[in-house]
């Protein structure tokens, strides 16, 4: 009996990190339910292609956050291992998207084969750029933010250059299916892609020691090295994984619109991705991490954006409201405020403080 209880308490402490993002998403849900009870209604409608698809705010939240969720997963690993963030993910996704479009355009017609080929090509390019970032960080020991500033500065120009300064469109039912709905399946495809990526990540952590290695490198690099972990390789690997995530996000974003606009594709998503990691309760200074926290953080950000849109806030003004909510969340989650609150709690309930 006591054993089970002990196990239960350990489980709780394991999930303590998820309290902040969970509270954040709960607040948004409650706010929406009070404002408009029908906000979360999901219904089945017919889209232009004649498919029965799910629609509603909830679906659009999950659908819209797909790129962000994928990037947040990769960003969590980089943050945990290096104690810094990659600010070039938006630019890298634009490069990957450009390569994807370039490959699709080079063939006569777009088939499943060319799409797979395009995906492999853009994945390879993104991983190479990720390796470049990772080399600067791990071998030359430059802070991640500075190292990725290079690609942040010139990434979108490289994307522009790949397609010769044009913004080509790729129209094909296959691409529409990738960015919208596969005929016969009522769930938007980007959501399915996120699930696949999440499953791949959990398999990676389940069957390799990458998770524990990443944490130990982030917590104490010297100790990790003395324990026989190749710290340089682990850091490099996290950047390569983030590169692959960028490729996936780029492909989703391109197929959503069936065109590539190197200037606006996933603009400023690096800031949102870092935010998702922070809201998810992961320390931006590295060390312990929980992927699920970052994913919940990503959906919380998208839920906030969708709520503001539903309240008819102009799209250009959204940032200001978002900033206020972010500050509220991080202030509640800050260690100083937590300490003050728990001190207050103990004062109010002296009986509990003894126990």
């Amino acid at each position: 009996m006591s054993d089970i209880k002990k196990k239960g308490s350990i489980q709780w402490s394991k999930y303590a990190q998820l309290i902040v993002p969970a509270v954040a998403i709960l607040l948004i849900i409650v706010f929406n339910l009070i404002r408009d009870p029908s906000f979360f209604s999901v219904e089945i409608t017919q889209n232009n292609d004649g498919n029965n698809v799910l629609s509603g705010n909830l679906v659009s939240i999950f659908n819209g956050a797909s790129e962000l969720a994928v990037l947040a997963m990769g960003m969590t690993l980089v943050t945990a291992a290096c104690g810094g963030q990659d600010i070039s993910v938006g630019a890298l996704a634009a490069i990957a998207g450009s390569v994807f479009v370039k490959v699709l355009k080079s063939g006569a017609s777009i088939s499943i084969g060319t799409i797979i080929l395009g995906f492999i090509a853009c994945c390879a390019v993104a991983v190479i750029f990720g390796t470049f970032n990772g080399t600067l960080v791990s071998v030359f020991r430059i802070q991640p933010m500075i190292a990725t500033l290079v690609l942040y500065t010139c990434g979108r120009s490289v994307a522009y250059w790949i397609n010769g300064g044009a913004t080509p469109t790729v129209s094909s039912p296959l691409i529409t299916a990738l960015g919208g709905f596969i005929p016969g399946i009522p769930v938007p495809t980007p959501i399915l892609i996120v699930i696949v990526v999440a499953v791949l990540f959990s398999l990676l952590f389940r069957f390799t020691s990458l998770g524990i290695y990443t944490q130990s490198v982030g917590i104490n690099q010297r100790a990790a090295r003395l324990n026989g972990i190749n710290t340089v390789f682990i850091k490099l690997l996290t950047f390569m994984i983030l590169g692959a995530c960028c490729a996936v996000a780029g492909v989703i974003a391109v197929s959503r619109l069936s065109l590539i606009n190197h200037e606006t594709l996933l603009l400023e998503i690096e800031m949102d991705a870092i935010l998702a990691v922070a809201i998810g309760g992961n320390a931006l200074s590295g060390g312990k991490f929980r992927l699920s926290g970052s994913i919940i953080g990503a959906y919380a950000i998208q839920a906030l954006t969708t709520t503001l849109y539903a309240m008819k806030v102009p799209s250009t003004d959204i940032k200001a409201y978002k900033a206020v909510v972010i500050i509220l969340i991080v202030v509640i989650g800050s260690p100083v405020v937590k300490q003050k609150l728990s001190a207050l709690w103990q004062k109010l309930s002296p009986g509990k403080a003894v126990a």
Partner: protein
Amino acid sequence: MSVSVQKARRREPLTDTQLLMTITICIFFCMYFLAMAIWGGGFLRWQQVFDMLNNNAALIIVACSLTIVMIGGGIDISVGGVIALVVMSCVVHLNGGGSLFTAALLALGIGVAFGAVQGFLVSYLEIQPFIVTLAGMFFARGMTTIVSVQPQKVAHDGFKNLMNTKVEIPWLGYTAKNGNLIPARMEIGVIVALVIVALVWVMLRETKLGRHFYALGGNSTSALMLGINTKRTRFLAHLFSGTLAGIAGFVFMMHTGAGNATNAAGAEMNAIASSIIGGTLLTGGVGDIVGTFFGVMTLTTIKSIVTVSGLRDPWWQSITTGAMLCFFILLQSVVLSRRGKGGVKTLLSKWLGLGKPKG
């Protein structure tokens, strides 16, 4: 002890700060002289230098603010947003019948408010500076569009006079083809920027507070043990940064004379890049304002060289900037790590004083 001092004033070894700064200044002059030799033309005239200053007065000021924060071990990415907000609010204020004095106060007020709130959140509530200033950037950019979505031009006469007032320096001018002497022109914003550079330089070198910034960035625990109020110092760093961003906004407006929601887009990243090129380390404790100034000039020179050399496709400018940035951070990384191992000392002669400083 005193005997040895009298005997020979021993050459002090260069600190990391001075070493990185010296490299930047040397590279800047090499690049500029190379440009003069190869392309001549505009580069041979003093006006080219003044144009670079005129176009980048605001950038120089925000680069100073970033340098202060980065020396203190933090980061401030809200400066671009603050500039945009200041410009838009001041333009709306001036067009609504405000006076120049109140507009200047408004600019300063916005800057101080951003600096104070961000500084409080970072230092006293111990929230990561990146997240706080990211939220600050979002807030400033969002507020800019709330103030006005439409781009606006200043219609205030007094301000227009101020904007068109230029300092003329005849002896640095050049003679045009028809024999007229065209004096070099400098905007008032440049004087403001140069004064700020001088003030910050004195502040960082000579005042107690300036040394506290270095101590805080170098090792905040040691700084605390030395009796420095680290929380207040960190707060002041962000306050300085916000205030300078407000001033930079006003200077930006004196250059463009119009408010636009996309004003100063990416200014924070340009400022960070300039500081890094100038030898400031993001880890804190290392940096110098003179280096930052030359960092801005180096960045601008690269851009004008790219334009002059005929690479007119729009992507070349940022690709070369990125490559140059990569070169600088690699150089710094290699120099510092070689120096840590004493490698540079063997590479270069002893009188350069490149050995690791002791104590």
